[in-house]
């Protein structure tokens, strides 16, 4: 085929292969390179694209809840304002700081992995996990208060006036407070689930780092888990003002 030469040359640019064709049954590059990839760069790019696609999916997953929030807040603005006052801004703010800090340590863990400083990577990953646990503990106390005060979703909404925020004392209990707490528990619950999954995955990455799987050549999994963790953080950044800081 006369066109073969030029086409193949053009193609090797197009699809990002650094070498166009060779017999793959022989030597296949470094240990971490999976059999179906040609080069480490291709493997890294693929993994990263896959993670970004997964994160896009995550955004759409939360999008349904944000839409529901928007609709019911515009229908019942006063009820939402009342219900928002029942949330503890101090605890929510503390959780925001904890999560932001954990995002920082996750990002530093990636840098440390790239530099190949294994011990430091492990420490940073552990700090991230500790922060995640801290977040859950604070969240637990918040939930406990909501249960105690009857600030629950839908037909379980039955506030106990002795446990309500001082700022709403004397105001009538709104009819649609249950809608707010339905959305509140769904949003923070699904987000909390993501935090728990994150703890599990970061722990797994920590184990692999301890086993010495990552080097300055190969740190893709650390990078990916940090991407996931930033998304969990980012969603909280939106949840906090939407739920805690409305008036």
């Amino acid at each position: 085929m006369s066109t073969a030469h030029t086409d193949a040359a053009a193609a090797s640019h197009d699809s990002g292969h650094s070498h166009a064709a060779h017999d793959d049954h022989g030597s296949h590059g470094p240990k971490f390179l999976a059999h179906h990839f040609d080069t480490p760069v291709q493997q890294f790019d693929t993994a990263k694209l896959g993670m970004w696609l997964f994160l896009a999916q995550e955004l759409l997953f939360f999008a349904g809840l944000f839409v529901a929030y928007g609709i019911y807040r515009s229908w019942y603005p006063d009820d939402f304002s009342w219900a928002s006052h029942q949330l503890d801004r101090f605890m929510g703010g503390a959780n925001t700081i904890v999560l932001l800090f954990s995002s920082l340590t996750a990002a530093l863990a990636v840098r440390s992995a790239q530099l190949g400083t294994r011990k430091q990577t492990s420490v940073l990953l552990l700090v991230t996990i500790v922060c995640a646990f801290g977040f859950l503990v604070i969240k637990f106390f918040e939930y406990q208060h909501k249960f105690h005060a009857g600030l629950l979703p839908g037909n379980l909404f039955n506030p106990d006036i002795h446990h309500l925020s001082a700022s709403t004392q004397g105001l009538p209990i709104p009819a649609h407070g249950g809608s707010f707490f339905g959305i509140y528990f769904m949003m923070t619950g699904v987000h909390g689930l993501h935090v728990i999954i994150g703890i599990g995955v970061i722990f797994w990455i920590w184990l692999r780092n301890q086993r010495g799987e990552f080097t300055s050549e190969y740190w893709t999994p650390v990078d990916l888990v940090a991407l996931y963790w930033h998304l969990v953080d980012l969603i909280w950044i939106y949840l906090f003002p939407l739920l805690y800081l409305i008036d």
Partner: protein
Amino acid sequence: MANEAQVATLAPIDAAHATTDRDFIQESAGIRNWLITLDHKRIGLMYLIAIIASFIAGGIFALLIRIELLSQGQTIMSADAYNRVFTLHGAIMVFLFIIPSVPAALGNFLLPIVLGAKDVAFPRLNLLSFYVYVLGAILALASMVIGSVDTGWTFYTPYSSSSDVGSQNAVIWMTGAVFVLGFSSILTGVNFIATIHKMRAPGQHWKRLPLFVWATYATSVIQVLATPVLAITLLLLIMERGFGLGIFDPRLGGDPVLFQHFFWFYSHPAVYIMILPGMGVVSEIIATFSRREIFGYMFVAMSSVALALVGFLVWGHHMFTSGQSEYATMVFSALTFLVAIPSGVKVLNWVATLYQGQIVLASPMLYGLAFIVLFSIGGLTGLFLGTLSVDIHLHDTYFVVAHFHYVMVGGTVFAFFGGLHYWWPKMTGKLYDETLAKVAFWVFFVGFNWTFLSQFILGSRGMPRRYYDYLPQFEDLHRFSSIGAFIIGVGILLMLVVFIRSLVGGAKAPPNPWGSAGFEWQTSSPPPLENFSRTPVMTRGPYDYHLATEAELYSGFPEDFQKSRNP
């Protein structure tokens, strides 16, 4: 890079290797090795088995529906039983069969091969999505065992959050099943997009992608972006049912119409998850059996992408009578008409491909041509439903039932079976009885039109859907339609006979039995573990019959099997 030209050849080399290399079926035999396999071809075949099992289950429910509707009043079952049967028919066919049918079974098998890759981007994720699918199927089965759902496959609130027919928990199990199946679909989509972007062999640039790949790409985008919305919607429904969350419950200040918006925001794009891969299959079949490039390749490819994008903007046309605002209705109607354009472009380009082709009416081609006929009917009847005032009359009648069966069965299922016939020799390495396959096709084709053409008239005369019983004036047409359902059943049975006979005693398939220029035919049948014995370099497009060598296309039409080089 001068030496590339020497290695940069396609098939004949691989065909020669076929006798020495072990194929992916012979490699590490044993059921255990299959269950933990990371090979996309084996995963594709496991999907295929699961999907055909689901199809048979859904088909049995369809026959039960048509038996019940043979005559007025109770024929074989109570109203509650009927409501469960049509719900299960819909839920199984949509979530367990059609959505994964072409992408997960055929797509998994073919995508890496036609890209010249050794596997999909994430083989372990691929196996995971298969097991997630199995888990979803088990949950669906569990919901049937503990009492079954009677909500319709759309799970509309507040019926689904309050129905007390049967078990209270069945709705939770079934929606849980669909939630889980959704993640199987999402993971497959992520995997395929990454594969198409990053795993292409040298020379396989975007303008050389087979149209099946373009269609799969568009499908995957929808799977990734639409399915999570269904997931969160069903999670809300489960919470509503379990804890009285109140998001969709008017008594608690919620809005049942919001559920419909959420549901169709997924389920309308999902229609394109179902039909786009079928269109991709038909493009491959028409090209191969006309021996020429698909007319207007770029327009066909881009129409897939256009359908995926516009498909996100038309969900409201399922809700013209629901009480959404008149302005929303107006916009959704206008956008709905826009969807007709890319669908029409595809059909016209397929027909134009036939012009001056070298047409062979092999069994896959019959399915391909049937797709054009049936999808045209499905598409044209869509014009009635997009037109606002006409839709008001036809909405939720048998006209809609007939319309979407023409698109989903006449379109996707015919394409799926066409693709199954087409790639069967590649997947199993076996040939099948071409004559009996054609008989099965004609029985299926006649039975299908028999069943569903009559339902258009039932619907436009005012017969509502999801009715257990009906008025006397509808009895003749219902009975007529029911007879057609049995003809379909016979056709499908014949087709199963064809495939089973092929597996048991079929002759060995040559690498390229249809004489196609497509890349998947340039390796042995079945392919070796890593698809090609060496990384291929694509030097021409998959439809460049004029550039393909004699050897690549060697005379391999079915009647010439004996003359082919293989034993």
